[in-house]
């Protein structure tokens, strides 16, 4: 029997709808054609969501100090632990650290417990790392954290400016929508503002490779230009805004943008002129703007230009913050950030009183709590003694991550609600609580365009795992707050959340979904995606806000913000001459606890890397290991040379944890510097230095079972299809490589074959049992080793052919048919296959490649790379 369940994707803030079709136990995932975020499209990660649902490494039972306990014991231990600390040290000695991975209902219950009943506002979230600068910028400009427009604006616009946003990899479905829009609207111009040339530049008519941190200069310059060229919407400014003169004065006193940005004046003028003349302009911004010590200013510098032209909340125009997480906005709605209270209310006396009355709260927090970076510093200093972390991995994702590890180590009580048993953070937990994963939990999320969608359960609940709202509710009840926490289902939580949004809301706050406050459980279950506000008089939601020029400030006017010249806090110097920029890659998500399980996603970029401009790679070759160091920490990474990187800049992906890369956790290097308004860390600007790392040996091991490899300094684990891959390098050699290889597994009775060239430091071994490859290991003094793809493919075979056994230690098929590194994840099409087809079959369009090899025809995430390959293979015709 076939049944379909409509849900939403667990990854980025686009919030795509996914249809899960169950057919006799197997589940197929496809894009939900009816969901307005994606209309059936999915990216490589979303398409591979089914790969991530295994129970491998799942946390299935509560644990106290590593010992399995029942829920009663675990919940009582959490409640008692928190109460003891509160009783002895006061409410500000405890904290929650939440996540954009939580559903709105989970978030709501946790926020209510901390801010209304424990009496502290020490509840913050990993959204702090993602888009809190946008929140602060929105509040400064509009009076409230509101994204005025929607995704349709991207299709209606004539100019899209992408600032600090690698949309092609980080929000691939929006990238696809823009690409499709350009096909129907050839007028559409796309400008990418980014220090590095990213995959998104494939779409760009113009790429402004500005110097890191010069965004405010760029937009101050634009404001100036608009003023100088008489392109301001003066009547809009007069009727609907405050503070224009001061903002313009600041802009005028800024250094000329061409000098600050490192972009030729003529090019800047061209961009400014384009912006000035294009009424339908959307400026999309993301982490490149937000993750800065003056990210809030960057946001407002952008919004200033939209206010100055009256382009806010209108069809095809507006500033557009794109969030990184599936429920970043839902978290903001409930007040998951330490500096907001709940339902878009703040810590002023009236709001505290109003929310307190609604909650019938026993102990309302009266002041904002600690924001993420400060919060963990307080943990490290012993001021916070009990911490509950839900659905996030802060020892990997926070800046100066090693100090976060140290802080957790010293914290007397660390509770972690998790899906996986072996995350880096779970290792520090005193109490581990098994939470539900995507596909199991049930509730709502809000995407970047204010669209509330249901995320529905489609899998049986494993072990004793429970939903986060249930866990928090149970703890609240055990702390004595049974009356305020009576919830037995997510719809009950949602109704209360919706009711609060409308409580004493006379239109002062846009966030009002009170029309949904009386949904029956069945109505809640069937809720179609819709955009807030959903006030009582607008039950179908609202597509755009502020288009009429009236804002949710007290005087209904938007505010210009004067943007002063600022620089990143830590400047490069002789010792640390390069600027580290961190970010996402196409096929991994956050700290890889989910995507790391997928072989096809892991194939795209198996190892963490540092992308360098060739001029900075003195003595460093492509593919060699380097040590990258800052004043805060160091990592070992593989060098990638790319002239799309600006000289002086290094890009490193943010995803690898110690679980997947022993020495590749880049946030250990990132400076713990934050924006004074948003508290968001400056994750895209840390001075670093690099040097070649020269281990004594390099190697890799492929194994059917996971291994514990301890003798290597550099170790990266990569999930393959039916095997684990370990990329290794070490500083000391074992006495005998043969003994080393045979000690990797405890299983006996394997047939071992090996190859040794001791004098040259080379060793290769393979183990076979039941005619199947069990393990193979390749060691060499240089990183010149056979490609892994062919060997990896052997793990999927029922039996090993004789010719394959003979070729095993060669590491390549007897006949050469190595597909090369995977480019198209969906159809597993490799680089060699593609370049072969381009060169030999003359397939010089992505369409032709798609027709012949199917590459790029499913999710389309690899299309920029396909175009790049086509250009590479045809010198002279390079696009």
């Amino acid at each position: 029997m076939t049944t379909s369940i409509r849900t939403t994707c667990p990854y980025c803030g686009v919030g795509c709808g996914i249809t899960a079709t169950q057919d006799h136990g197997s589940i197929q995932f496809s894009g939900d054609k009816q969901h307005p975020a994606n209309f059936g499209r999915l990216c490589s990660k979303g398409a591979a969501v089914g790969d991530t649902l295994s129970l491998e490494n799942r946390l299935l039972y509560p644990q106290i100090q590593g010992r399995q306990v029942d829920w009663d014991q675990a919940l009582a231990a959490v409640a008692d632990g928190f109460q003891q600390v509160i009783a002895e040290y006061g409410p500000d000695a405890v904290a929650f650290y939440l996540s954009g991975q939580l559903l709105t209902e989970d978030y709501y219950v946790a926020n209510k417990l901390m801010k209304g009943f424990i009496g502290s506002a020490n509840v913050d979230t990993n959204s702090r790392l993602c888009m809190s600068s946008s929140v602060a910028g929105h509040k400064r400009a509009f009076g409230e954290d509101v994204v005025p427009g929607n995704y349709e604006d991207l299709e209606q616009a004539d100019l899209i400016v992408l600032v600090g946003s690698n949309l092609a990899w980080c929000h691939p479905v929006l990238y696809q929508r823009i690409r499709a829009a350009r096909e129907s609207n050839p007028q559409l111009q796309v400008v990418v503002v980014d220090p590095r040339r990213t995959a998104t530049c494939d779409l760009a008519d113009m790429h402004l490779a500005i110097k890191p941190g010069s965004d405010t200069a760029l937009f101050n310059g634009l404001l100036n230009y608009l003023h100088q060229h008489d392109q301001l919407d003066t009547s809009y400014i007069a009727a609907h805004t405050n503070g224009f003169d001061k903002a313009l004065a600041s802009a005028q006193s800024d250094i000329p943008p061409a000098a600050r940005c490192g972009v030729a004046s003529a090019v800047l003028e061209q961009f400014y002129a384009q912006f000035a003349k294009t009424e339908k302009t959307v400026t999309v911004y993301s982490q490149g703007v937000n993750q800065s010590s003056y990210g809030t200013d960057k946001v407002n510098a952008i919004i200033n230009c939209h206010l100055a032209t009256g382009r806010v909340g209108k069809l095809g125009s507006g500033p557009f913050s794109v969030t990184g997480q599936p429920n970043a906005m839902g978290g903001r709605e409930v007040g998951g950030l330490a500096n907001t209270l709940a339902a878009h209310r703040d810590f002023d006396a009236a709001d505290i009183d109003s929310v307190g009355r609604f909650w019938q709260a026993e102990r309302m927090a009266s002041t904002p709590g600690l924001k993420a970076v400060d919060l963990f510093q307080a943990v490290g200093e012993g001021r916070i003694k009990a911490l509950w972390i839900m659905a996030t991995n802060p020892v990997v994702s926070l800046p100066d991550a090693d100090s976060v590890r140290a802080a957790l180590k010293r914290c007397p009580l660390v509770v972690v609600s998790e899906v996986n048993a072996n995350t880096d953070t779970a290792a520090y937990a005193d109490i581990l609580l098994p939470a539900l994963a995507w596909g199991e939990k049930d509730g709502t999320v809000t995407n970047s365009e204010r669209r509330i969608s249901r995320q529905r359960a489609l899998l049986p609940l494993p072990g004793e795992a429970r939903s986060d709202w249930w866990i928090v509710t149970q703890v609240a009840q055990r702390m004595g707050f049974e009356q305020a926490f009576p919830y037995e289902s997510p719809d009950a939580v949602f109704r209360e959340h919706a009711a609060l949004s409308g409580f004493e809301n006379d239109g002062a706050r846009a966030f009002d979904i009170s029309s949904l406050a009386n949904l029956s459980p069945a109505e809640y279950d069937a809720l179609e995606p819709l955009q807030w506000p959903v006030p009582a008089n607008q039950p179908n939601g609202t597509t755009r806000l502020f288009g009429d020029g009236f804002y949710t400030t007290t005087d209904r006017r938007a505010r210009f913000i004067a943007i002063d010249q600022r620089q990143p806090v830590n400047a490069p110097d002789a010792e640390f001459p390069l600027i580290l920029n961190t970010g996402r890659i196409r096929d991994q998500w956050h700290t890889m606890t989910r995507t790391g399980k997928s072989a096809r996603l892991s194939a795209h970029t198996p190892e963490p890397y540092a992308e360098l401009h060739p001029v900075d790679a003195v003595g460093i070759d492509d593919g060699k290991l380097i040590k990258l160091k800052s004043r805060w920490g160091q990592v070992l990474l593989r060098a990638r040379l790319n002239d799309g990187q600006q000289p002086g800049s290094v890009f490193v992906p943010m995803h690898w944890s110690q679980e997947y890369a022993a020495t590749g956790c880049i946030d250990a290097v990132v400076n713990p510097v934050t924006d004074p308004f948003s508290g968001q860390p400056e994750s895209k600007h840390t001075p670093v230095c690099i040097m070649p790392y020269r281990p004594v040996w390099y190697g890799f091991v492929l194994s059917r079972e996971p291994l514990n490899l301890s003798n290597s300094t550099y170790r990266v684990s990569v999930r393959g299809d039916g095997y684990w891959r370990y990329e290794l390098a070490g500083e000391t050699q074992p006495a005998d490589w043969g003994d080393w290889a045979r000690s990797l597994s405890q299983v006996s009775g394997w047939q071992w074959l090996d190859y040794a060239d001791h004098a040259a430091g080379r060793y290769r071994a393979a183990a076979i049992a039941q005619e199947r490859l069990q393990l193979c290991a390749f060691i060499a003094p240089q990183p010149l080793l056979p490609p892994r793809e062919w060997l990896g493919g052997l793990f999927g075979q029922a039996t090993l052919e004789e010719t394959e056994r003979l070729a095993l230690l060669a590491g390549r098929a007897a006949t050469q048919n190595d597909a090369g590194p995977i480019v198209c994840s969906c159809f597993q099409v490799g680089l060699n296959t593609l370049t072969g087809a381009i060169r030999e079959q003359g397939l010089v369009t992505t369409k032709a490649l798609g027709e012949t090899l199917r590459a790029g025809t499913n999710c389309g995430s690899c299309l920029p790379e396909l175009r790049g390959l086509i250009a590479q293979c045809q010198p002279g015709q390079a696009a």
Partner: protein
Amino acid sequence: MTCTLNQTKPRLVLVGNGMAGMRALEELLKRAPDRYAITVFGAEPHGNYNRIQLSPLLAGERTLDEIILHPPAWYAQHGIELHTGSPVVTIDRTRRRVWNAAGVSVPYEQLLLATGSMPVMLPLPGRDLPGVLSFRTIDDVSAMLAAAFAKRQRAVVIGGGLLGLEAAYGLHKRGMSVTIVHLQPHLLERQLDEPAACLLAGHLRTLGIELALGAQTEALLGQERVTAVQLKDGRVLPADLVVMAVGVRPDIELARQAGLQCERGIIVNDALQTSDPRIHAVGECVQHRGQCYGLVAPLWDQAQVFAEQLAGKTDAQFTGAIPATTLKVTGIDVFSAGDFQTHSADETSITETLVLRDPAAGIYKKLVLRTESDGAIRMVGVVLIGDARASGWYLNLLKDGTDVAAWRDELMFGPVEQAA
């Protein structure tokens, strides 16, 4: 009897109707088909046959017809006079004439000696008993087959070298229980290193061939016929058939009598001339630069050089060959070439080995490399057990002295095409 011969062309006489001599004739005919009148003497009563194929003949993998290289008709077609079944017994260098035991006498302008080698028969008590054989000729094979077909059960092969192993395998295939008695602790010690020999021993034992290694034969027992082999350690191995395969020595008797310079073999220079410039020698009877060859590949090279010389191209030279061995035992490939023992030849070079082992699949491969003082790396030896598909490639690398430094990592895994 004295033959009347056509005197218009100079006469070339070949003594030894075997593989080396006949290959030399073939090569000569290719180059100069009409230059010489040719006479061939052969001690055995057959046309030239492929001695290497005696092992498959014994094992029943070939028939007699299949191993004949040159049937009598071939000689007639090419106008070659053939005298078989009687060895040449005299060379009169002064009169330039040879005689065979049957009294046939032929004069020569050019004489080619290709007398081959003789099996070594250990001076053991009982060595002349019926049922004690060597393994050299079709007649030896016929005798062995007769024993096997007579339902004689047990065979002992003395000697665990190439020939001994092939004899043992053939007899085993013919249904006999076979034991190999070998003086050294490892088989094929001149061709294999210890791990390779152990792997081969394991393979033979798996087949059902018994091995008595490090064992010395004291006597062959029996009255009318051999019945057992007495070892020095006291063991007595029952035997209906004993094959002695402890090696060969060049057959130089005729040359010595003729006063040609001989040591272990007939001494030849790079033009393959003996101490008498009208007399050349090729094949196993030859000693060249101190080396005697028992394997076929260098003989082919010699045959070519001889043919060039006699066709008038006197700058053709034989400068030696790298010994290379392929064991003709079905079911296991064994190949050995060059110097496979790890030791430094001199102080300016370093010897290193690459080893691949897959014991469960019966595979062992060892490549010995020498790093020269100029940084070049050359192969000096190779041993392959279980997978000898790349043997020809390795042999060429050895012969050509190719610098393999750039693809040292790939060397063990053979040329890509060849691996298919």
